């Protein structure tokens, strides 16, 4: 990346390219998670292309790197697109999404693709791993940080709250949890499955320094990520209010688009609405 920070407009353009690429991948494989790809694209873009994360694509295993853990591993379309845009591997690989023997599994595999920190897919795995990475930094007196992106429905898995208790007990101020609060899970709106509110209060009660942010406002996202830890000696949680399917009119806020697959016509319409070209 260049040394010059991206402008808000540039971040928006990159995020929309991530969106359309993820949708094209899902169109290609006839499988994918469009809704969450679109809700998380702005968060991922700010972390990687906004250069919040201190990572080195040429040396993905550089020991001092910041770690990002994609706990909502099903949103691999947006994740892979972002990693490719950041230079971890060639964007041409994205066209192999879920193909036989592809490096791009439906869910990320660290042993296949550079830049992946943890194999995720089953929910509730990322935060315990993130706690372990943060503890390792403390033990080794290293300054790396750990960012974990979770879904909101994912927080119904109890392992997250086990990990949250450990994070606060060990004062892991090098750990940042970002919740993609799009209010929709596979089956329905979270409110109709298991109510998650008051979500920020839950994290606060578990000992996190919490801030609710607009997960699609680049300025707000960048300011939030640049200000971690929010409190010394405490892990940080950002509850990012997002819209599932964000940026594509026919997919926005519709549970059916959790793993909806776009047709070619829908893909072209999405590109038009996002004001970006189709990747292939």
């Amino acid at each position, binding site marked *: 990346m260049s040394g010059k920070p991206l402008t808000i407009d540039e971040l928006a353009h990159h995020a929309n390219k991530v969106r359309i690429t993820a949708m094209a991948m899902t169109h290609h494989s006839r499988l994918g998670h469009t809704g969450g790809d679109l809700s998380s694209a702005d968060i991922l873009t700010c972390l990687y292309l906004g250069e919040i994360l201190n990572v080195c694509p040429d040396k993905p295993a550089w020991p001092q790197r910041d770690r990002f853990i994609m706990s909502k591993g099903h949103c691999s379309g947006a994740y892979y697109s972002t990693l490719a845009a950041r230079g971890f591997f060639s964007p041409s690989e994205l066209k192999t999404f879920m193909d036989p023997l592809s490096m791009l599994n439906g869910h990320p595999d660290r042993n296949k693709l550079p830049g992946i920190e943890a194999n995720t897919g089953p929910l509730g795995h990322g935060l315990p791993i993130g706690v*372990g990475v943060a503890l390792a930094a403390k033990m080794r007196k290293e300054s790396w940080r750990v960012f974990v992106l979770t879904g909101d429905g994912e927080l119904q898995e109890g392992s997250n709250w086990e990990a949250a208790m450990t994070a606060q007990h060990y004062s892991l101020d090098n750990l940042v949890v970002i919740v993609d609060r799009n209010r929709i899970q596979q089956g329905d709106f979270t409110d109709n499955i298991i109510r998650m509110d008051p979500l920020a209060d839950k994290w606060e009660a578990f000992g996190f320094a919490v801030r609710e942010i607009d997960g699609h406002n680049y300025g707000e996202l960048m300011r939030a990520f640049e200000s971690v830890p929010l409190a010394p000696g405490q892990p940080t949680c950002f509850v990012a209010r997002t819209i599932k399917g964000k940026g594509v009119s026919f997919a926005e806020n519709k549970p059916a688009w959790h793993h909806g697959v776009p047709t070619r016509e829908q893909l072209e319409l999405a590109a038009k609405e996002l004001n970006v070209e189709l990747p292939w």
Partner: protein
Amino acid sequence: MVDTVAIPPSAAAKLFDCRDAYASALEEMAATDQRVCAVVNDSVSSTKLKNFSTKFPDRFVNVGIAEQNMVGVGAGLANGGMVPYVCGASCFLTARAMEQIKVDLGYSNWNVKLCGMSSGMAYGQLGATHHSIEDLAWTRIIPNLTVVVPADPQETDQVIRYSLEHNGPMFLRISRMAVPAVHDPLHTFTLGRAIMLHDGDDVTIITNGVLVSRALDAAKALEQQGIHARVLNMSSIKPIDADAIIHAARGTRGIVTAEEALTAGGLGGAVAEIVTLHHPAPMRILGVPGVFAPTGSAEFLLEHFHLTAQGIASAALTLFREKQ
């Protein structure tokens, strides 16, 4: 038909708790290797890591009663360059965290060592909830996960020290039942290699863990009847010593396996897979036969399921006679 074999009383041997050997090996390794750390689930005393926690407080993590988290934390510590020993009662560690063991350790292939303590039926009186007789079947089928069941303090010490050299996830099953020393002091543990503790060409007994000493007593009793039993300590269940198994299937009249676990999916299953594919031979699989064990002391339960020198010798004798 059950054949009976008189078991001569053996001289009172000194007995050991293998957890002591494991804990002191871990402390010595941590003193010289800054990567060594421990993760427990409020199990400081049962994992015998009190000294470790005092000596290395910065490398000791107690996550509380949270096994899924505990295994995930182990994977994260490995990501951060540490070598974590994740230690807890085997019944909770394996059963509660099975998906984390599969995904975070096996599939991810992180260098994490799971120490399943007080395994088998060591918590006899506490009931089936606290028995861990399923863990061998659950762990040995997970790709990348190495599975070892040491038999005595010497082997436990060697297995723990070996685990630091081994780059990959391991499940180490460590009992709290008192056992005698069964190995020659000069013996060294080699992963994937069975240890022949008693030679014989009539019948083979393959076992591990707390049953090894009982198998040796069985072999001595059979010797008095003129039957020469080979006893293999198969501490390394995965990888398993296929050559030693095939050699036994070819060179003796059959194989008796004995394990402090369910008869399905454990050591007996692993041996049967090799025998079936390479050299079909008569077998007896001794263990807990597909039931939840009742309550009772560990010794009582071993007697109850005939996992004794008498039970092993009888099975070997029956198999030997059937083949004649």
